[in-house]
Every structure is written in structure tokens, then in C-alpha cells.
């Protein structure tokens, strides 16, 4: 077990380093520096600015400094566009917002997705089953950038129940629409995976034995069927959790929540490379870590898996 975790870490660490180096190389490949503007600065001013941000040093040294700062102090350096803040400020401002509605979306998606999947499986070929299948097909063609405008149209413009954007310190009215828009497609996927794995498990021999013993149905499901049926869902949840807590970029932009996705897109338009890189690396690290956590959980739950 420990050697498995250790081996996975041994892969994860170089992966993160490669990600840092690659994004740094991409940044150097970009034409023009961050301070080239329509009004050319005088050479001395330019030299001063470049010295301030360490851009006058050789590439390898810049890359080394950057990597060391990121790895040892989790410091992504200053923003190139906002003189008064660093990338860390941007992240610490935006990430809590994304984390809040991302976690809620995760909870909603898991609870409703699992419930829907289990109900569909135990009432196989009933209207409930068809409803669940219908929802999961429908949600596949309604990605969040389609869900978001439809939700705003119905609940803000037509019904006038909920605000169509903003964050307002995370008041509950402002959280609902982003959470629904973000969680729908994940919920549908979870329901679909859960349904098919539950159907498979319910046909297994040990469930028949449990039935033959005369156990009540809820006990069979909770004590016997749930654990093996959860395994395929679990491997889906890892990547899904990361993409939810890093927030869908679309949700941040469309609902103006002020999450990191919004900063990311704004920086993409203003070519603020250090912010883009910082957020990309942050998301990459989270992805790798959560995949690791899920793999370990997987090995822990399923005794058949030996690494």
C-alpha cells in the first residue's frame, strides 16, 4: 500500500514539474513581452521594469527562480497587468468563491446522481428508470454554457425568483443558479454510471443469496449492493471533483461570481501571462493530487486491486 502511494507520488512530482516547465516555455514562445504596448516605453524605463520583474535575466535562470518559488513557497510571482497585486492575491481572492460553489455542486451532483441512479436500477424499466435515462441523455447535450443562459432566462427573466449573476459574499440566492448550472451534467453522468453498475451488482449471486435469506430490500441495497456498485462512480468522481472546485470557467464568467475562472479569462484577454500560468499550474496540481487520492481510495475499497 505504502509503496503504491510512494510510486504514484514519484510519478506525480515530475508531472507537476513538467507542467511548470512546459507552461513557462509556452510563455517564452509568445511573441512580444508583457510590457510591449502601443506607446513604446523609453529603453531605460523598459530596462527598469524588466529588472523589477526579473525579466532581464537569462531564460534558464528565470525558469529556475520561478520553479523554486512555486515549489518552495507556493509563490507565483507578481501579476504583469495589475501592478499592485500578485498572482497569489488573485488566487486567494478568487479561489474561495470557486471552492464554495464547487463544493456545493459536488454535494448536489453526488447526492442526486446517486439517488437517481440507485432508484433507476432497483425500479428497472419503470417510468423512474426512463426518467433517469432521459435526464442523463438530455444533460449530455446541455453543457454548462447552455444550461447557464437557460436557467437565467427561466428563473431570472421569466419568473424573477433568483438573481442572474453576482456573488454578494456568497448569499444563498446567488449560489443556487451557479450550483445548478454546474452540477447538472455531472449529476447526469453519476446517475448513468451508478445505474449501470447497480444493475450489474443486483444481478450478482451474492445479492440473490441475500434475497433468499429474506433480508429487507433497503438492507440489501445499503449493506450489500452499495459498496461494490460505488467503485466505477468513484473513479469518475476524482476528476469531476477537481473540475468542479476549480470551477467551470464558464460559470465564473457567465454569473460574474469573481471566481478564479473569471480572472483566468480576463487575464487571457489582457495577456497577463503570470496569472494564466499560476492558475493553470494550480489546477494541474489539484488534478494530479485528487487523482492520486482517488487511486489510493480505490485500492483501499476494492481488495481485488493490487498494485
Amino acid at each position, binding site marked *: 500500500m505504502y509503496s503504491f502511494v510512494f510510486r504514484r507520488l514519484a510519478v*506525480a512530482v515530475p508531472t507537476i514539474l513538467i507542467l511548470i516547465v512546459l507552461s513557462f516555455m509556452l510563455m517564452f*514562445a509568445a511573441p512580444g513581452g508583457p510590457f510591449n504596448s502601443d506607446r513604446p516605453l523609453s529603453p531605460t524605463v523598459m530596462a527598469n521594469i524588466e529588472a523589477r520583474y526579473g525579466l532581464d535575466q537569462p531564460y534558464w535562470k528565470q525558469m529556475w527562480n520561478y520553479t523554486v518559488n512555486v515549489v518552495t513557497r507556493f509563490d507565483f510571482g507578481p501579476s504583469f497587468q495589475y501592478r499592485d497585486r500578485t498572482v497569489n492575491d488573485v488566487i486567494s481572492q478568487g479561489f474561495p468563491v470557486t471552492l464554495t460553489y464547487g463544493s456545493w455542486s459536488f454535494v448536489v451532483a453526488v447526492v442526486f446522481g446517486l439517488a437517481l441512479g440507485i432508484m433507476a436500477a432497483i425500479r428497472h424499466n419503470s417510468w423512474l428508470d426512463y426518467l433517469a435515462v432521459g435526464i442523463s441523455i438530455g444533460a449530455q447535450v446541455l453543457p454548462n*454554457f*447552455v444550461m447557464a443562459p437557460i436557467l*437565467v432566462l427561466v428563473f431570472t427573466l421569466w419568473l424573477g425568483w433568483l438573481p442572474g449573476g453576482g456573488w454578494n459574499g456568497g448569499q444563498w440566492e446567488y449560489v443556487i443558479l451557479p450550483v445548478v448550472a454546474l452540477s447538472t451534467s455531472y449529476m447526469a453522468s453519476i446517475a448513468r454510471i451508478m445505474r449501470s453498475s447497480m444493475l450489474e451488482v443486483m444481478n450478482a449471486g451474492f445479492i440473490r443469496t441475500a434475497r433468499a435469506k429474506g433480508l429487507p430490500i433497503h438492507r440489501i441495497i445499503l449493506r450489500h449492493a452499495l459498496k461494490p456498485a460505488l467503485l466505477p462512480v468513484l473513479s469518475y468522481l476524482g476528476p469531476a471533483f477537481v473540475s468542479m472546485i476549480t470551477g467551470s470557467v464558464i460559470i465564473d464568467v457567465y454569473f460574474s461570481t469573481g471566481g478564479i475562472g473569471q480572472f483566468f*479569462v480576463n487575464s487571457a484577454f489582457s495577456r497577463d501571462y503570470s496569472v*494564466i500560468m499560476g492558475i493553470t499550474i494550480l489546477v*494541474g496540481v489539484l488534478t494530479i493530487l485528487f*487523482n492520486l487520492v482517488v487511486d489510493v481510495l480505490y485500492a483501499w475499497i476494492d481488495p481485488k486491486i493490487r498494485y
Partner: protein
Amino acid sequence: MFPERAVADGLVDAAHLAEVQGRSLWKDARIRFFRNKAAVVALFCLIAICIFAFFGGYLAQYERDAIDFTLSGPNAYKGVPSFATGHYFGTDADGRDLFARTVQGTRISLLVGIVGALIAVVVGTLYGAVSGYFGGRTDGLMMRTVDILMSVPYMFVLILMLVIFGKSILMLFVGIGLISWLDMARIARGQTLTIKNKEFVEAAIAIGVRPMRIILRHIVPNLAGIVVVYSTLLIPGMIITESFISFLGLGVQEPNTSLGALISRGASQMQYGVIWQLAFPLFFFIITLFAFFFVGDGLRDALDPKDR
């Protein structure tokens, strides 16, 4: 006497059966596919959408970038869909004909989907086949690379690439294609591992065919079924990715457009009561995705040997 007679009859029957033309894998699959009503309906929808996307321009009364200033800006609500004015789908916020723009948007979305999937399929299949065929250390190295690339947050990297190398359709093609071959490579490798131990590969090795030729002539054709299924399921994914990027304004740039860009524009205008600006692109987006998903599902059922 009797039992022997029956056996002899059986043999005659069997001989007859053998003379009946055998059905190939592909013919079998075609029959199964056309028995699936949802898939057939979806296929017709898809053909209709393709005709709309590639020939719909001839029906449009206006150029896609011609601005009608009497209908633009705050007067946008005047550009309601009507046959009388020739704006079948109405106009957008800038007074441009939405029909012509939807035609072009659908075309670009379809093209990105198909070309992106094509890049992914070619690169992924070759990579997976090579990795699976050679095996051993090469395989380990190549698959580790895929694992590492898979843990990269691709949406962010794609945006990073678009920012750095400029926002163009070409970059979008390359970026989306580069990202999406990873799954294909895994699938192709898994399939290659089972194929490479078959007798015909052994025979090819025995008569001295070179490895690359075995991969191209003997392995890749046998991957075709799974590749076809996967690529029809890949196309809607590509379309969603492209629309996602264009929705953010980082993808296809004006005056060109795509379904994602149109949905984004429509969504930003909908509070002014010009709901058609959102409804028409959304309709085509959803129908296209539905059609691809159902055709893909139908193909999977038709070609998947597990389901026979």
C-alpha cells in the same frame, strides 16, 4: 436407417447454407444499425443538418456580415424572424441576418468537430498501435507520457495556447486535436494488444514483413470498428469544446462565427426580449449533439461484438 437419413438431410442442409453468401462483419453491422430506429432517425437529422450547413447559404437573402443599420443596436427587437423581410431567423444585435450566421456557425462547428476528431483518430490510433505492438519498455514509456499528458488541465492549457499563439481557427483545430488523441491512443493500444497475438500477424512476421508495415496494413485495419465508434462519440465532444472556447470569446473570431459564439451573443442579448437570437443557434447545437450521440450509440451497438 432413419437416423442416418436425418443426418444426411442435415448435411445437405448444411451444404446449402454454406453456399448462401456469407455476411461480412460490416454488412452485419449495417443491418443491425438500420434496425435501431433512434439511430436511423438521428442519421437523417445529421444529414439534414449537414445539408443545412453546407448548402443553406444559397437560401439566405443576406450576406452573413451585411449589417442592416435600421435593425441594429437598441432596435434589435425589430429584427424578428419573418419570411416577409427575408430574415428567416431574424437578425442579431448588430442587425446581421441570423439565418446566414447560423448556417455558417453550424458549418464551422461541424468542421471543427470532424477535423478535430480526425486529427485525434489518426494520431491516437497510430500512437496506440505502435505502443501496443512494440510493447515492453517502449510501451511503458509511451503510455506513461499519455498518463502525464492526461493529468494536464487541458481546457486551461488550450486557452493558454490560444492566447500565446493567437486566436485563430487553425490554432483551435490543432489545440483541440492535440489534446483529444490521448483517449484514442489508450483504446487503440488495448485493442492492439489482443490483435498482435493473432495468427495473421504471426504469419506476417514469419514472412519477414517489417514492423511498421504490419502495423499499417494488418493492425490498423482491424482497429477500424472501435475507431469508428469512438470517433462518432468524439465529434460531439469536440463540438462542445469548440463552443465552450468560442462562448468565452477566445475561439472563432468575428466576422466568422460558430454555434458557441452565437449562443454566447444570444445569451447576452436575451434580457431585451430578443429570444430568437438564443433559440435558433441553441436549437441547432442541441439537435446536432443529439444526432451524433444517437448515431454513435447505434454504431456501438452495431459493431460491439460483446452485444451479439
